[in-house]
């Protein structure tokens, strides 16, 4: 498992380049990907149509009539070289608090449906994930999963769907994916696959282990709330999320507020995320202790 000394530049058909920074889940690699995306924007690199950063990589969509794969690689190498160490990176970063029901009835219904129709051997996801990670049970899973802020590393698979990484290393959990995947997942489900946490913006098929649900939209084509002023997707890469455990009754009350438009998003917008300070904090944690 490595951070590559030199990134790899891989062709994707005639119009795409995949840049791999490493092959591990490491926030460093995502900071590099987001840093490069920013540098491409600032430098207005000719021939680049758009970029999509991911955990340890970045996809570049380019126009071959304007730039060749080889010249694009040269330009990317130059920009990566000029970025400097990732420690220097500071990114404006909003923080969202979401009320969250853990071990909720709606994801249980989806799991029960899967067990009845597709794979009767499937263990109930919260118990399964707790057991695989050496936790004492679903209750500890809730403490550990909700005990950290999550970093939005990328968006995709479905419009507006965020892929997030735990910022507190004491709260890192991993989970395998469903095989075969579920055919449906309730909107607002919180789940995990590999070492990433995702929120399903709408009901879609999916393969993540699921164990919680939020009543707050992260996707709003009608843009009914202020937070959607610039887009119908709530998130940008570099946002952070904190899941706040609540009861089903509180969930339903917030659902009502969302429906009548009176809900106010809990978002903190004055902070800048400093990679250097983050690394300093991490270095002083006792990683042998879980919540």
């Amino acid at each position, binding site marked *: *498992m490595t951070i590559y000394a030199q990134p790899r530049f*891989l*062709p*994707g*058909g*005639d*119009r*795409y380049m*995949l840049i*791999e920074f490493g*092959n*591990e*889940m490491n926030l460093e690699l995502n900071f590099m990907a987001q840093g490069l*995306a920013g540098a491409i924007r600032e430098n207005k690199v000719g021939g680049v*149509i*758009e*970029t*999509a*950063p*991911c*955990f*340890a*990589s*970045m*996809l570049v*969509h380019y126009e*071959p*009539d304007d730039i*060749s*794969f080889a010249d694009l690689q040269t330009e990317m190498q130059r920009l990566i070289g000029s970025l400097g160490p990732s420690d220097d990176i500071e990114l404006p970063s909003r923080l969202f608090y979401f009320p969250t029901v853990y071990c909720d009835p709606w994801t249980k219904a989806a799991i029960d449906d899967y067990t009845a129709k597709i794979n009767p051997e499937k263990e109930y996801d919260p118990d399964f994930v707790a057991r695989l990670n050496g936790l004492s049970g679903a209750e500890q899973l809730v403490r550990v999963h909700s005990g950290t802020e999550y970093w939005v590393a*990328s*968006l*995709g*698979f*479905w*419009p*507006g*769907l965020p*892929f997030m990484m735990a910022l507190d290393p004491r709260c890192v959990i*991993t989970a*395998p*994916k469903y*095989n*075969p995947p579920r055919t449906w997942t309730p909107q607002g489900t919180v789940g995990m*696959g*590999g*070492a*990433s946490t995702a929120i399903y913006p*709408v009901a879609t098929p999916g*393969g993540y282990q699921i164990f919680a649900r939020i009543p707050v939209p992260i996707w709003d*084509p009608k843009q009914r709330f202020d937070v959607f002023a610039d*887009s119908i*997707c709530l998130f940008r*890469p570099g946002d952070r999320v904190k899941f706040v455990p609540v009861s089903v009754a509180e969930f339903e009350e917030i659902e009502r507020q969302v429906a009548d438009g009176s809900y106010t998003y809990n978002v903190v917008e004055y902070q800048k995320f400093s990679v250097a300070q983050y690394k300093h904090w991490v270095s002083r944690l006792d990683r042998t202790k879980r919540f």
Partner: protein
Amino acid sequence: MIEVIKPGLETSVQDWPGRIGFWNQGFPPSGPMDSWSFRLANVLVGNAPGAAGLECQYLGPTLRFDADAVIAVTGADMAPKLDGVAVPLWESVAVRAGQTLALGPAKLGTRAYIAFSGGIASEPWLGSRSTFHQAGVGGIGGSALKAGHQIPLGAGTGVAGRRVKPEARPPIHGDKRWDVEVCAGPNDDWIDAAGQERFLSADWKLSGKSNRTGFRLEGPEWTFAEKAYNKGPEHGSLPSNIIDHGYPLGAINLAGQTPIILVSDGPSMGGFINPYTVPQAAFWKLGQSRPGDIYHFRLVSVERAQAMAREMKALCTEASII
């Protein structure tokens, strides 16, 4: 304005190159699967090649025109009729107010395209009129066409009686076998030498469980190189699992042992490898093939694939019109 009398199986407004610039929020480009036929239809009616038109799939729509228009139908042969009289494909045709255009089931090919002089003037959404109906994005009210929909048209200067030279049209056929170009990568090094050989020599059958989100293929097993097994647990447990990464449009995504070609409405990222990618210039073959058809993949260089796209772009111009 055009009224939708019958919507057909799944007919939608699309433009070319589709919804671009939102890949990092998870929006697929959408757009027509056979952009060769689509662009030529627009050129026939005097539009820019990428103007918004209709993509018809398997079974076409019935449309009533409440104003004069100039249209062209290209791609699959759905036996288009204007007030019951056959309309030629690959030719611009005058339509009078009050006439009804009816397309039936595709007899040859799968997807037909209807261009309207002036283009479709529906509300653009994030810069494009293309429809991604699964997410309620674009098109008419975010969906494929429904009976009763009203489709607004722009003002056009199209002229009837223009034809596409036969040699400039995509060679849509009913042989049920297609040679489909692919480029190696991004993740071809995850497949062992025998697996690469097998992929390029095998017959791959297009499964019925295919649509604009993905074209599922049936064929032999894949075998993997060492790096598919010797990787950190966060990649996932299957050999074809990888840390989630961006998916190129046209990627042949290996979900377990099932290859799925990610097409116009497909996912933008995920946790499976993409050993090969279908280039843009070969998409028309995907768009005009049917479940049960056999694909045989032919390796081409990135440069050759780029040249093919340039050649196709040059064909989708006035130079192909007589």
